[in-house]
């Protein structure tokens, strides 16, 4: 427990510093929020410092189970302290709303309770974007570095990747270098896209914010109409940023360092991701053209941007999607459930799991027809170990169960069926905008407080892949801890 508090202390200090960095726009644009921002930043930083100093001697986890607690508490603490700038500046009135917004940020979901964001003080806008940026990075870090180092890989919690079927963890000898590589790629990508967007005629302030929210597959915007008012070129640039955010970061590192031969370890996931995106784009573009009567230019732009936004669970919008043809919406829901590659910033089930699931079913069909043949489930030419396939099965079933539960709870809290389905899937996958009133350019402001809490919890569940959170809810977890 002490070690957990120490780690949380370190992370809170980082968060405090990030809040303080929001002083730059606050002072530059002189919107009068600097006292509030300074106060919340310093408070967060000092709480972190206090925890770190108090528990500086704790070096290891007392119990392996505590790893789950650590991961969950870390995200909860981030979200809790992330509410401070919203509350202190008075942009969000109630704690429920602030927590929703903050949770949506640190889980890089992108669901918002703010009907319009255009008039908000710049420091708050930057803070929203920034929560997504470090939330998105945090999850990559968690999967690539922290989880293996805590020994959770033995439990093979986070996909096959952390459990050795895939050699993401092994390519860098140590956790430190994995961390460096990932951080390097992330920062490099951010910088490149900021510059490209800036050069394409955007104000540097807008470029920074939009890059932060899209490279992390978050989806907050600083405009009321998300991406619609941008030029077509800028939208395509952002779509490309989103597309990259759905690719495994270790893979991007390999590409950037010209280690092409390492690509083959993930080539099937990558192909699946790209082909699925391509097919979905085709469907959306043609249905926009023929069913919705968009012009060709419009349908291609909206189709490309929106489909990528869906499969990477970003949630940036090329236009108001709420009046779109129902099948497109349905396809969107399915795409966001699938999600991008494991080890990226996206949510959803992840392409690797979907591949393993589908192949598992295919294997069983083949077994039935040819009972004497040996049909292992293969991924990238390597047979997938039985227990990993088993884990994927469990994660899938739990995911489905949690989605069902979420829909039921939301309906019981007074939300209608369409909206419940939309909100649950948008929150658990991290897409953001739901269906009907919470979809498109709408927001979650009309939800009851209970519904907002459920949504916040779903975001946390989705980001931490359900199992981590659920295991804490079991009584046996707390027995003789």
């Amino acid at each position, binding site marked *: 427990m002490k070690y957990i508090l120490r780690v949380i202390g370190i992370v809170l200090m980082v968060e405090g510093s990030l809040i303080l960095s929001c002083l730059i726009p606050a002072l530059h644009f002189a919107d009068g929020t600097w006292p509030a921002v300074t106060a919340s930043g310093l408070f967060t930083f000092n709480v972190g410092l206090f925890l770190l100093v108090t528990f500086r001697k704790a070096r290891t986890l007392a119990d392996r189970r505590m790893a789950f607690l650590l991961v969950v508490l870390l995200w909860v603490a981030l979200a809790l302290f992330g509410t401070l700038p919203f509350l202190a500046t008075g942009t969000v009135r109630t704690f429920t709303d602030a927590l929703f917004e903050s949770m949506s940020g640190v889980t890089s979901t992108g669901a918002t309770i703010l009907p319009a964001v255009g008039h908000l003080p710049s420091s708050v806008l930057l803070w929203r974007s920034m929560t997504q940026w470090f939330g998105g990075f945090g999850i990559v870090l968690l999967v690539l570095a922290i989880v293996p180092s805590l020994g959770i890989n033995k439990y093979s919690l986070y996909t096959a990747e952390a459990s050795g079927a895939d050699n993401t963890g092994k390519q860098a000898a140590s956790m430190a270098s994995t961390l460096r590589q990932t951080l390097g790629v992330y920062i490099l990508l951010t910088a490149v896209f900021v510059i490209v967007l800036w050069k394409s005629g955007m104000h540097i302030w807008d470029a920074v914010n939009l890059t932060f929210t899209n490279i992390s597959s978050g989806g907050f915007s600083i405009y009321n109409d998300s991406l619609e008012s941008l030029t077509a070129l800028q939208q395509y640039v952002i779509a490309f940023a989103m597309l990259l955010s759905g690719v495994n970061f270790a893979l991007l590192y390999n590409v950037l360092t010209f280690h092409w031969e390492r690509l083959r370890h993930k080539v099937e996931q990558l192909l699946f991701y790209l082909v699925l995106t391509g097919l979905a784009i085709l469907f959306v573009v043609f249905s926009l053209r023929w069913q919705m009567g968009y012009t060709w230019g419009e349908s291609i732009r909206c189709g490309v941007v929106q489909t990528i936004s869906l499969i990477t669970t970003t949630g940036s919008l090329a236009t108001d999607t709420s009046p779109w043809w129902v*099948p497109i*919406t349905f396809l969107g829901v399915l795409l966001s459930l699938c999600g991008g590659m494991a080890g990226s910033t996206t949510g959803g089930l992840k392409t690797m799991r979907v591949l393993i699931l589908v192949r598992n079913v295919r294997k069983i069909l083949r077994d039935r027809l040819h009972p004497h043949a040996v049909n292992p489930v293969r991924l990238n030419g390597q047979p997938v170990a039985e227990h990993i396939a088993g884990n994927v099965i469990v994660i899938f079933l739990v995911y489905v169960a949690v989605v069902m539960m979420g829909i039921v709870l939301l309906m019981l809290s007074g939300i209608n*069926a369409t909206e419940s389905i939309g909100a649950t899937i948008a929150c658990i996958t991290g897409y953001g905008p739901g269906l009907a009133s919470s979809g498109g350019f709408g927001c979650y402001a009309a939800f009851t407080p209970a519904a907002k809490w459920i949504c916040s919890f779903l975001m946390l569940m989705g980001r931490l892949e359900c199992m981590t959170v659920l295991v804490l809810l079991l009584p046996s977890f707390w027995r003789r801890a």
Partner: protein
Amino acid sequence: MLLIYLSIGMLLPVAISLYAADGAQFSLAASAMIILTVGLLLRNILGRHAEYDIRERESIWMTVIIWLVVPLCGTLPYLFSGINTFSDALFESFSGFTTTGSSVLVHPEDLPAGLLVYRSMTQWVGGLGLLLFVVATLRKLGISAGSLYNAEFSGTQQRKLHPRLARSVSRMWRVYIIITLAMIVLLLVQGASLVDSVALAFSTVSTGGFVTRSTGVAHLGTGVMVVIVVFMFLSGINVALLYRFFTLRWRRPVPLWRDEELRVYLSVFLVSVAACAVSFLSEGNDYRQALPYSVFHIASTMSTTGFYLPSLPRPALLVSVLTFVLIVVGASAGSTGGGLKLRRIIILAKYIANYFTRMMHPNAVFRVKVNGEVVDDGYIRKVFAFVFLYIAFIVAGAFVLTLCGTSIPESVCMAAANVSNLGPSPLINNLGGSLDYALLPVAGKLTLVILMLAGRLEIFALVAVFSPSYWRK
């Protein structure tokens, strides 16, 4: 392989001609004659060369062909009398044979009585046929592996049809027929008309759910209701258990009251009834209406029969949600009901529970046990594959339905209700959709037909025929 044609030749027309003299004589007799002729022709032309060596591929093929040809022939009586378009007749016929009970007929009482009985009879044949084919053909493919039935069936792991298997099938026939007869008699005793009793008994025992009036079963008296509830409940139970119950073999091999699936079935039933009743009462309904309604509704939903009563004055959202969940879960394995089946749910739930324990104690070893028998991992993966395909079918079906212009919740409900062979359930309407099948376009009806068929064949057979590896040598 050619055995199919034999059974088509024998099964259908005999049964149909039995009822031909009942109302719409001409059309039924005519279609019976046609079907009989076709069947005899097929038998005589092809049956002479029939090989009796049935392997997996052939039996899958046979199952699918039978389930396509029989309902296709079954459209004839509809076409001769009453229903005009072919797609409607097809929908009605498939809905019958798959024991779904979805209907495009808004006012079934306008139909001649003979046709109504025929309609319910297709369900009865379907319910029996399903058991027959699950046991006789699918079983040895491992689809419902040895552990699915208890001792008397588990000795039959042979790859070819075996006298013993034939005997077990005939036992199920007997149980099925006895239950049906008992129900007809009880309904008659309670004062229902002959047509009503026969039709309702057929559609209850098979968990089909075709009704004879547009008001459902509400016009019948309390006594009839009680009989229907009891038999709906019974038809959701594994037939093998019922057989043991009636033959007084209560203790062997596992005492009946210890059977896990039966226990879960009972407790889910009781809990759902309680939840349903409480939520109706909390909405302010009269308890004299709410209690019977809850019992009836849950029995109808769990067994995937699909009978319904007129809605209570104040609907409760929780009930609708519960209904949806129960539809997907379905009845016991080895019963005539549809859905995922409780046994599979039990296995998966135990598997997931083990997984959580393993997260905390990584070196522990656990096995999933049902009724004290260890379920091996291969079987669990089969169960999972089934669940996955089931969900995939619901999702894909719902997607196609949205192409036909229905809303998302509506499509999902329709797809789920038809894959699980439930059919109509007005309570789902609270979830945002009306299950009015008559208004669907032709493409939508065809989608639902495929879903019903997939649900009835437990998906694998249908998927197998369409998978490339099936056709590979």
